[in-house]
């Protein structure tokens, strides 16, 4: 906030975000105390790996969410884009730089496709991106003849891309990807709060008609929200490919829900108009912590789902109650 009057830390960070930070600290301490396996460094590295691609998707999807829309296509999209990237490298022998550019480019392309349909044809975002979700799920398999995607492994040419996220010195792995994530959180916070794209995306979610009456080309900025989401799905595709050894075509459905869930826990309203990248970051941290912590105290995957769902309901209820005041 440039030039604004002094705010207390509470106001600056926001009550909801402080609550999440509190919950994060408590949960983290709890898992550490209860589970010896959780206390290990390698567990933290595993958690970070899961966070990379979820976080990237979540940062991107925050923008359509703030317009009052949603982007369901990022999960299956991520798998599709990374498989196509793998195909370019392994079957066509293209360098990894081209593969990465195409992977991200496909994300941007499908984001633009979603944006045009939502902004120009006025279709509901839920339906539009649900359809795109199905289209990209099928498309990945068709383009690559159903081949499993594999990105360069350690020792192979181009494996530096894996080092971007996890840098190994001797036996110790450093989660350097977190630096990239934090940098992107910062950049996208500025984009959301201090550029025209961000300002108009918030305005679209707040009152689209009023923005139109102010003489702003609403469709253009509305499309941008989905392009940003697609771009980050493309980045997430690279992070995903670098986290796992192989990627199965046709999967990925459901990954977007963790990202959307994280954004919503972080205070982004499904009704549009408000949200923050820092909130999204914290929301994804919470989901990731549960996903890693719960198995370590003996609760299985099904329980994670139930608990995550419960937390979402609580988060949205708190948010709605705050809004009604």
């Amino acid at each position, binding site marked *: *906030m*440039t*030039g*604004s*009057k002094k705010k207390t830390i509470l106001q600056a960070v926001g009550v909801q975000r402080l609550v999440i930070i509190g919950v994060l600290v408590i949960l983290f301490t709890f898992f550490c105390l209860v589970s010896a396996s959780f206390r290990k460094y390698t567990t933290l590295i595993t958690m970070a790996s899961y966070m990379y691609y979820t976080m990237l998707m979540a940062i991107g999807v925050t923008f359509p969410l703030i317009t009052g829309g949603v982007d369901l296509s990022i999960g299956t999209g991520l798998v599709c884009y990374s498989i196509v990237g793998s195909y370019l490298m392994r079957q066509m022998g293209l360098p990894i730089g081209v593969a990465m550019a195409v992977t991200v480019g496909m994300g941007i392309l499908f984001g633009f496709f979603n944006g045009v349909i939502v902004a120009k044809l006025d279709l509901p975002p839920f339906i539009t991106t649900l359809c795109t979700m199905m289209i990209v799920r099928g498309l990945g398999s068709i383009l690559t003849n159903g081949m499993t995607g594999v990105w360069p492994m350690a020792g192979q040419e181009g494996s530096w891309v894996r080092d971007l996220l996890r840098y190994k010195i001797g036996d110790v792995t450093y989660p350097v990807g977190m630096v990239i994530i934090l940098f992107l959180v910062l950049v996208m916070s*500025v984009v959301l709060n*201090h*550029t*025209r794209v961000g*300002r108009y995306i*918030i*305005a679209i*979610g*707040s*009152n689209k*008609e*009023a*923005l139109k*009456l*102010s*003489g*702003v080309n609403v469709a253009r900025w509305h499309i941008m929200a989905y392009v940003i989401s697609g771009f980050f799905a493309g980045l997430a595709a690279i992070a995903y490919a670098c986290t796992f050894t192989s990627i199965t075509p046709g999967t990925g459905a459901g990954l977007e829900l963790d990202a959307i869930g994280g954004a919503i826990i972080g205070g982004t309203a499904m009704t549009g*108009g*408000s949200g923050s990248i820092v909130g999204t970051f914290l929301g994804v941290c919470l989901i990731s912590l549960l996903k890693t912590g719960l198995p370590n105290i003996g609760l299985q995957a099904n329980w994670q789902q139930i608990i995550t769902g419960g937390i979402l309901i609580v988060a949205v209820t708190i948010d709605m109650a705050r809004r009604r005041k």
Partner: protein
Amino acid sequence: MGEIILTMEGIDKTFPGVHALDKVSMDVRRGEVHALMGENGAGKSTLMKVLTGIYQKDAGTIVFEGREVRFASPREAQSAGIVIVHQELNMMGHLTVAQNIFIGREPRHGLLIDDASMNEEAAKLFAQLGIEIDPRETMSQLTVGKQQMCEIAKAISHEAKVIVFDEPSAALTDTEIDQLFRIIRDLRDRQYGIVYISHRMDEIKRITDRVTVMRDGQTVGTLVTAECTKDDIIHMMVGRVIFEEPKTQSRVPADAPVVLRVEHLNAGRMVRDVSFTLRKGEILGFSGLMGAGRTETARALFGADAKDSGDIYIDGEKVNIHSPKDAVRAGIGYLSEDRKRYGVVLKKNICENSTLACLQNYVKHGSLIDGEAERKVTQRMVDALKTKTPGVDQLVMNLSGGNQQKVVVAKWLISNSKILIFDEPTRGIDVGAKQEIYELMNRLVQEGKSIIMISSEMPEILRMSDRIIVMCEGKKTAEFDVSTATQEKIMNAATREIAV
């Protein structure tokens, strides 16, 4: 008052089926507040929408600052210097005050928006207006009055020369109105041309220099406010010849039993201490201007909105109505002014619509709908009400407005309503079908039903009602027997100054 800055001459606008503006003329001078008055539907808003580029005129000329103009969009009108402060505020509640004021034209440093200078500029605007609003405050945190001040600040920042206020005081408190008037006077002194649309007669006297009255899409005339009386204005507003014969006297016998008595009904801001009675076989007209609280009274009576207090007696017995279900059980049927939203289910057929309110009477074997019985009763209604349709299976969306209205009537007759509330019964219905609806209403009261009719159309009120209640700003301001009612008397009560 300065020279003329804006002239509208012979403006004509036709919508399908409605001649909304018929050669309307009006001019605005620098440094004047010019009131635009008229009943609902007189064409005030349409005229202002033509002026600000929201609608395109069919004929006529607009001359602004000596040049003929034709605005294709609100944006164009804005940059020329004509802005409108809408009754429903067009604000983005999640953004700050300054962000709202400068939306679409933010000052920038490269890619970044320069919020600091935006806040400064906004603060300057407020200082100019003598208002205290923090430009960094989130818009939704402000009161309606302050939001309106922000709209005014936005208008000034556009370097407007003519500012149109569309019923600005409707949602304001008295202190806020005083502040608004101070600002408007100040703008006038700074040579802005101001158009002020309002129904409040006392405000017209307080704030305006001239007043132009519209009626039925035409300009009746322009007066200098200081030289005219409230009666002059009212006479111009209603001074039409009524073609259809008004009722000369009530047809309800003096000893007809009271079927409904409402005592001290309160519901929110719009229904304040409303009491009235309805006799068997009577048509009780509710007159008043838009926003007078008539529909709200009906909705509270029907249980669609919560009541704060008040008692309702049906046939002398007190009834508790907390939901429409209770009202239907008590024998009340409500025909909404917004038929397509609240009256009928458009994509269902006549049969399904007719039995909607009492489907429980048309089931057999426990829970299956008895299609045969349903069709029989619907057919009987179609015959009785002379609904024009090829059959009871016809989808309601394929019927004309008048026939849709009959389906709603059928729905309430089938569920044995004794009291029918018609809210704007002929809205969106063409002239021929209107006549039929009137005949139907007359037949219903002859058969012993009782009707409450809410209508904004003066001829309709005078033609149909046996007794007339006038409301203004949530209060009942007058009650006339039709034999003593005149347009002037009704309009006088509908625009009464409220002494607070």
